[in-house]
C-alpha cells in the first residue's frame, strides 16, 4: 500500500493535470497550491464517508454505552455494562467461535472451488460464453431468495434433496436437515459457498486475463507441464487477486445475514447463530438494542483485526 502511494505521486508529477498544467496556458487562472490538490480531489468522497460511516459508528458506540429501551429510547448511561454482559454471555462466546468457523469455511471453500472454475472458464472453448453466464447468473439472485430455495430443497418432508437421496438408496427415511445444527450448519456453509462463487470467479477471471499468454508459451517450450505452470506461474501471478478475493469475501461472509436467518434463525437452541444474526435477534426479537450495539462494535473490531492481519500476512508473503 505504502509503495503504491509513492509510485502514484511520482506519476502525478509527470502527468499534466488541472493545477499543474504548463503555466503558459493558464496564466489568468488563480493557482491552487499543489499540496492542496489531492485533498480537494478526495474531499467530496471524504465528506461522504464521514457522513455515511462515522455518523452510524458514533451512534452505535453511543447506544452501546447506554441502557436502551426495546423501542429505541435511550434511558441512561451504563458505561461498559453492555460489553461486560455480552462478553460474559456463553451464547456470545460460542457465537464468536462459530462465526470464525463460518467465515473460514465459506471463504476457504469459495476460493478453492472458484480457482479451477475460473481456470476452466478462462480457456477458449466452444460455448464458453454460455458457461460463463451460467456460473455468474446466480449473482443476480438475492441472497434471501437463494436461501429460501435451498431451504425448500432441504425440507424434511417434501424436499428435493431427500427425494434424490432416497431415490438413490443412500438414506432409508427422510432426513430432517434443518432440525439440528450438525446438519443445518454445514448446509448453510454450502449455500454460503455457492452464492459467493460468482463474485470470486469474476475476480479470478479478471486476474487470469491480466496474465500475458506468451509466458505460458515460453514455459511450454521450456518443458513445463500444466501443473508446473499452475504452481509456479499462475498461482504467484494470481496472488494479489486471491488476496482481494479473500479479504472482500471475508468481510461479506462475516457480515452475511440472510442465509442463516432465513434457514434456521440461528436456532435451534442458538446452535447456528453467527454474530450478525445474534445481534439482530438481540435488537429486534428480544428488544435489547444496547446489547446489540455492543455486539456490533465487537464485530467491527474483529473484522478490522482480521483484515489487517491478513493484509499484513499477504504483504509479507509477497515480498
Amino acid at each position, binding site marked *: 500500500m505504502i509503495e503504491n502511494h509513492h509510485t502514484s505521486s511520482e506519476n502525478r508529477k509527470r502527468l499534466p493535470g488541472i493545477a499543474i498544467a504548463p503555466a503558459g496556458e493558464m496564466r489568468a487562472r488563480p493557482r491552487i497550491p499543489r499540496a492542496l490538490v489531492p485533498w480537494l480531489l478526495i474531499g467530496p468522497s471524504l465528506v461522504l464517508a464521514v457522513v455515511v460511516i462515522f455518523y452510524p459508528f458514533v451512534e452505535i458506540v453511543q447506544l452501546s454505552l447506554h441502557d436502551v429501551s426495546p*423501542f*429505541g*429510547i435511550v434511558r441512561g448511561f451504563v458505561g461498559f455494562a453492555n460489553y461486560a454482559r455480552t462478553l460474559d454471555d456463553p451464547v456470545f462466546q460460542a457465537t464468536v467461535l462459530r462465526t470464525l468457523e463460518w467465515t473460514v469455511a465459506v471463504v476457504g471453500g469459495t476460493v478453492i472451488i472458484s480457482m479451477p472454475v475460473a481456470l476452466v472458464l478462462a480457456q477458449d472453448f466452444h460455448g464458453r460464453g454460455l458457461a460463463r453466464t451460467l456460473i455468474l447468473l446466480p449473482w443476480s439472485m438475492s441472497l434471501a431468495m437463494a436461501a429460501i430455495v435451498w431451504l425448500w430443497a432441504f425440507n*424434511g418432508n417434501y424436499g428435493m434433496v431427500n427425494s434424490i437421496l432416497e431415490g438413490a438408496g443412500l438414506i432409508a427415511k427422510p432426513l*430432517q436437515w434443518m*432440525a439440528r445444527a450438525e446438519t443445518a450448519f454445514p448446509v448453510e456453509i454450502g449455500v454460503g459457498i455457492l452464492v459467493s462463487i460468482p463474485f470470486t470467479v469474476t475476480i479470478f477471471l479478471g486476474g487470469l486475463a491480466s496474465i500475458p499468454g506468451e509466458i505460458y508459451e515460453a514455459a511450454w517450450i521450456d518443458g513445463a507441464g500444466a501443473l508446473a505452470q499452475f504452481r509456479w506461474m499462475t498461482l504467484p501471478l494470481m496472488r494479489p487477486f486471491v488476496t482481494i478475493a479473500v479479504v472482500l469475501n471475508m468481510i461479506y461472509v462475516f457480515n452475511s445475514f440472510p442465509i442463516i436467518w432465513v434457514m434456521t*434463525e440461528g*436456532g435451534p*437452541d442458538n446452535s447456528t447463530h453467527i454474530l450478525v444474526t445474534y445481534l439482530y435477534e438481540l435488537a429486534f426479537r428480544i428488544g435489547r438494542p444496547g446489547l446489540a450495539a455492543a455486539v456490533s462494535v465487537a464485530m467491527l473490531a474483529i473484522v478490522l483485526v482480521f483484515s489487517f492481519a491478513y493484509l499484513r500476512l499477504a504483504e509479507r508473503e509477497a515480498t
Partner: protein
Amino acid sequence: MKTGAPESASAGVRRRPLIAAAGSALALAPFAARAATSLHVTVAYYSAATGPYFQQMAKAFEAANPGITVKIDVVNWDTLLQTLQTDISGGVTPDLSIIGTRWLLTFVKDGVAEPLDHFMTPQFRDRFIGTFLEPAEIGGKVYGLPIAASARAMFYNKDMLTKAGFPDGPKTWDDVVAAARKIKAAGGYGFGLQGKAIETDVYWYYALWSYGGELIDKDGKAAFDSPAGIKALTLYQTMVKEGLTQPGVTDYTREDVQNLFKQGRVGMMITAPFLINQIAAEAPKLQYGICPVPRGTTSATYAVTDSIVMFSNSRAKDAAWKFLDFLFTKNPRVTFSKNEGFLPTTKAEAADPYFADNKQLQIFVSLLPEARFAPTIPGWEGMAQAVTDAVQSVYLGKADPAAALKLASTKADQALKGD
C-alpha cells in the same frame, strides 16, 4: 397532494355542478391543505385480507369525515418491532399502531403511549368484553384497545383419532400419548409439536399450565422451573423420543405444523382459531374437530390480544380517536374478526349470528374463563427466548428437562429484572 385535495373537497361539496365543484376545489385547495388532518396508521399483517380491510375502513371513514385523510401502512409481524423502534427513536411515530399487547408496558414506561381514558365514555368502555380490555390496563389506565384476540385449543384429525379410539378428541395428556402411539403404529404423526421460531415457548406453556405450573411468581420471578414444569417438559421429551411427534420438531414453526395438519398427516395440534379459516380455504375436505387443551391436573389455555394504541406525540389525537371509535363499531369489527379468524372482542360483535351460532368458535370462547394472558411484564421477550432455547435443547436430546429449565430460569430472571 394533487389528487388528495380535490378528493377531500369533492367529498364535502358532492352535490354541486362539476364546474363549480372544480372551481371551488381550486379556490379551497390552499385552505383545505391547511385544515386537512392526515392520520398515519400502522397495522400488522395478519393475512392477505388485512391490508384491503383497513384500506376499505379508511375510505369509509374519510367519506364520513371530510377533512381527515387516513394513510395505512401494513407491516409484517416479524418486522413490526423493528419498524416501531425506528419510528420511535427517530421521533416520527404514526398516530395509531397495532402492537402486541405485551409491548405496552415498555411503551408506557418510555412515555410514548397515550392513555385513552379521557376519550372513553362509559358507553364506549361497555362495548368491550371485559376480559379483553384488561390486558391493556396499566396503573389503572387503558392504553390500548383490543383489536384482535385469540385463544388456543386442540385441533384433531377425526379419522385418525376415531381409529385410535378417541372420536371426540383427547381429554387428558395421557389420552394424547395413547392416541399418538396408535396413530404412529398406523403410520402417521401423533402429536404435532412446534419447535421453531416465535411461540415455541408457548407451545410448552400449554402443558405447563395444565399441570398447574406458573410462569412467574408474585414477586415477578421466573417460576416455571418447578415440578409441574419438569413434568410438562418430560412429557414432550418422551413424545419426541418415542417418535410420537413429527420427526425433527426443531425445524417446525407453528405454520409448518399447521401445514402437516392440513395435509392430514398429523393427528393433534394446539393452535388458534384462525386455522379454521385456513382449513376451509385450503383443505375443505379435512374432517377435524376442536377440543380444549388436554388436561394434566387442571385445564388451562393461552389467550392473546393485540392492541391498537395511540402515540402520545400524535398531532391529531381527536381525529385518531374518531377513527378508533369507528373501527370499534359493530360492522367493522365483525368483518375484521371474520376475515382473520379471531374471537370477537366487543359485545355487539359476539352477538352477531356469525359468532353466536358458530360452534367451532364457541369452543374457543368457552375456554376464555380459564385462559392465561401473556402477562404485561417487562422482559417477556427475553424470558420467551430463554424458554425457547431450553425446550429446544431438550427436544434435540442435548439436555434433560430439569437442567434445561434451571438454566432457562436463571436467564429469565436476568431478563425480568432488567427489561
